[in-house]
């Protein structure tokens, strides 16, 4: 794997992209879960110093972003007909 240092800007960009993708889910539960999962994961890894650990976490986040983007599209095809009581 390329071990080039990952900049702060790139990480914040990934964070923002994940949160933006989370917003696209039509199901309340999945939307909130994706958001919560993103925030928790970044908090958990915020004190990483080892550059290989950082790049591993970064590429993991990247692949999660791909999953989230794909699933947002798939779930939009099967959108719930009734809104969750939480967003009423």
């Amino acid at each position, binding site marked *: 794997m390329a071990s080039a240092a990952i900049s*702060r*800007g790139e990480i*914040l960009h990934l*964070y923002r992209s994940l*949160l933006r993708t989370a917003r696209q889910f039509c199901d309340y539960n999945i939307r909130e879960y994706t958001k919560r999962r993103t*925030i928790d994961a*970044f908090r958990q890894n*915020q004190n990483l110093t080892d550059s290989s650990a950082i790049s591993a976490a970064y590429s993991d986040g990247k692949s999660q972003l791909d999953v989230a983007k794909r699933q947002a599209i798939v779930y939009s095809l099967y959108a719930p007909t009734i809104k969750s009581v939480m967003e009423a």
Partner: protein
Amino acid sequence: MALRAAVLRHVRVAVQTRGLESNPWFPSGSIRLMSSHDDHLTKEEVADRVLSVIKSFPKVDPSRVTPEVHFQKDLGLDSLDNVEIVMALEEEFKLEIPDKEADKIDSCNLAIEYIHNHPLSS
């Protein structure tokens, strides 16, 4: 049958005619349906809503929030919180703030300024 015809000839049903004024699809007043961005948000309104979004952020002490407050220096937030606040502001004002601009917004003043000048904020 003759009776029925005779009765019908004499009974008139009052027809209610609605003037154009009362037609909900064509209001004669100054209200224009489906037009949203005519009246822009005032700066006070933007400031109020920005402050209330920031006050409702879980890690922020609401009593320390003022229009001049800096997110990281004054409120003890970090860069991840900063991203979350800008996202929350986007949701509140129905905006999409590009990354470059979002990175610059690090204080209440800048947020209010940016949103006030944004043509699509609502």
